[in-house]
């Protein structure tokens, strides 16, 4: 067992570093640091996606025949870690990391040829239509209905928590095409053009003051049957496959570490009256850092296991759970470190394009919004309670 990188891996690390140094603009970096929601806005995020694509690094997890770079797990680790260290934009994962693998796994040749290159290049911007107002953790109770009419489905219903629906030109959605004996049956996976008549989007502001999620309404929306991925009624299987990507794509520790570092730097600065001199703050920083160390080791252990062809299993639930909890601990610490400045609300967005001087130092601007919005981390992608159910069932057999 060995934590050090091989000569080839170190060379790759240098390659990634110099690529990022050459291509990541100050504007992108600043915008990323000043974005208190999960994903960068598309102007920033997609600019980075295009840069990666030009280098052939647009989709690290894809097989080589669809444009993946054919990296080993260690190379993916290095890429993600260096990206986090440099503060690259948080590209919306809905395309490359979510719908992409489903199309690759279950899509028709026509779908692969049409959609995959557009995901890679950033030409298409995707959102996810899963949750509904009445279907949260109990996702398979979803009611948005697709009724067959010739070569089309006619879709009626509503989706909620739709991240970046207001930016997206495409949505992948789970819709009910029939009522089976189990509620998981009769669900289909469809790809929807967001410009189709009958689709309306309502913004939902989160408690941090950001517009990232939406509710989307479908009113007699016609979607070609050719836009269904895989078999009719098998959508639940595909959707679950994708959720495992959402949870297990996790090389999350590097980002957590950067977030903590920024807070630790604030705690050591006069801006916070040296919050670090409070033993409570100093110890809490260490507690969170150690939790990140543990998560990082679990990620590396998983990567090593994957390299020998083993399955992640319930480890992806452990990673999701710990990542979300630690992220919340980081943001909680951020609020506590900035002290009285936590009282100053900056309602304008984006924070990197303010046309006035904010009431608090720029490096503090995201602390409170990130903490508030960050309550969602233990809710989306399967709540912590659902993850514990999965761990109990898959790891412990109860």
């Amino acid at each position, binding site marked *: *067992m*060995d*934590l*050090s*990188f*091989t000569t080839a*891996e170190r060379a790759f690390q240098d390659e990634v570093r110099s690529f990022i140094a050459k291509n990541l603009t100050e504007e992108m970096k600043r915008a990323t640091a000043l974005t208190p929601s999960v994903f960068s806005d598309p102007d920033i995020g997609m600019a980075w996606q295009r840069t990666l694509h030009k280098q052939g690094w647009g989709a690290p997890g894809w097989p080589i025949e669809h444009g993946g770079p054919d990296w080993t797990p*260690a190379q993916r*680790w290095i890429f993600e870690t260096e990206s986090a260290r440099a503060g690259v934009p948080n590209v919306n994962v809905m395309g490359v990391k979510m719908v992409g693998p489903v199309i690759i796994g279950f899509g028709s040749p026509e779908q692969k040829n049409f959609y995959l290159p557009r995901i890679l290049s950033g030409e298409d911007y995707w959102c996810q239509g899963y949750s509904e107002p009445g279907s949260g953790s109990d996702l398979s109770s979803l009611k948005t209905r697709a009724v067959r009419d010739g070569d089309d489905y006619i879709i009626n219903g509503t989706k909620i928590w739709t991240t970046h629906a207001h930016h997206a030109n495409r949505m992948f959605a789970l819709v009910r095409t029939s009522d089976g004996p189990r509620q998981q049956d009769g669900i289909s996976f469809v790809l929807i053009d967001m410009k189709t008549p009958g689709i309306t989007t309502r913004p939902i502001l989160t408690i941090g003051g950001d517009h990232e999620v939406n509710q989307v309404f479908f009113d007699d929306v016609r979607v070609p049957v050719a836009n269904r991925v895989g078999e009719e009624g098998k959508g639940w299987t595909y959707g679950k496959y994708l959720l495992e990507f959402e949870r297990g794509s996790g090389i999350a520790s590097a980002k957590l*570490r950067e977030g*903590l*570092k920024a807070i*630790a730097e604030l705690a*050591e600065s006069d801006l916070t009256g040296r919050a*670090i001199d409070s*033993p409570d703050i*100093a*110890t809490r*920083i*260490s*507690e969170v*850092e*150690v*939790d990140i*160390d*543990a*998560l990082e*080791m*679990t990620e*590396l*252990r998983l*990567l*090593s*296991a994957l*390299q*020998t062809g083993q399955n992640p299993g319930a480890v992806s639930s*452990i990673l999701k*759970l*710990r990542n979300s909890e630690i992220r919340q601990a980081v943001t909680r610490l951020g609020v506590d470190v900035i002290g009285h400045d936590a009282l100053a609300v900056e309602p304008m967005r984006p924070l990197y394009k303010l046309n006035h001087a904010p009431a608090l130092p720029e490096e503090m601007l995201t602390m409170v919004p990130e903490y508030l919005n960050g309550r969602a981390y233990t809710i989306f992608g399967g709540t912590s*309670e659902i*993850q*514990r*159910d999965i*761990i*109990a069932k898959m*790891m*412990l057999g*109860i």
Partner: protein
Amino acid sequence: MDLNPSDEQRLLRESAERFVAGSYDADHRRKLANDPLGFSPAVWKQFAELGWLALPIAEEFGGLGGGAVEIGILMEAFGRGLVSEPYIATVVLGAALIEKCGSAPQKQARLPKVADGSLKLAFAHSERAARFDLAKVATVAHKTAQGWRLAGSKIAVLDGHAADEIIVSAHIHDHQGPSGRIGLFLVPAKTPGVAVNDHERLGGGRACNIELSDVQLPEDALLGDRSDALPAIAWAVDRAMAALGAEAVGIMQVLLDTTLEYTKVRKQFGRPLSANQVIRHRLADMAMQVDEARSMALRAALKVDAEPVERARAASGAKAKIGRCARFVGEQSIQLHGGMGVTEELEVGAYFKRLVAFDTLFGGSAHHYGRHAQLGRTAVPA
């Protein structure tokens, strides 16, 4: 980067687990608890035959040249059986200090004997007034015409009663007065003036308090030269904490497995305890914390030879985190066993007590988060 065990490491794990499963059961442990030695000399001999005493010792001294990862593998298996042989005292602490600080003749005279099982060691460092501060040593070694004169009091000396030779830390006072340096002294157990008051140790095995009054030692009792031994002490304790962390993982795994099994068979309100979501989620949290502890023990082992600040932060981070996980897993194992968990009739309590001892030894979680934070300010976090 590869965290998959090598074939040798896999074999070591298998043989250690097989040995522990075959030799260590509840009856064996009960017998040892009432034994004044607290462990089995026959088992110690088998450790020697299996090569486990030689494991981390360099090949030139009759050892196998293994590293902290191999020790961790062994210790995790020891944890599963609550092994009480003086492995930490003799091999992980004692032999390591001699190998690190000793002169060539000192090493040659002792390390082969540790490897073959004929020499047992202990490390007497902690003092009551020092709490967990490794730098705080009130025991004094005065330079005399013939050698050294030691005086002081030590506590929490693991397995000191069984040691042939005790390594004692003391502040060196030479002819000019206090030197400001700590030395390590090889003290044969039978030396006049050494009073060993041993006691049963929480969670199995034994430990002792040692009074040193006017202990006369020869010139070559000082391990190595007169340079300050504090960095070596910190190094050895960090290694021991990594090893103990792995042992704690083995203990926690047994508690998790036992508790899981119990909640499946124990029925209340007409159904197994594990049918309740509140119980399932508790067990999921326990499983997660065992896994986090496993990650941290491995991390500390992989960093024992890193530069001092990185090594110390990894060791303290592991000690603090595993300590917390250990308390949680231990306390919840008792909780989920109900009233029976609080009795000596089940083994859960014995495993729990060893975890409490682990958390306390060399400083608890609060101390080590503090050390981690202190060291963090002088270093750029990796």
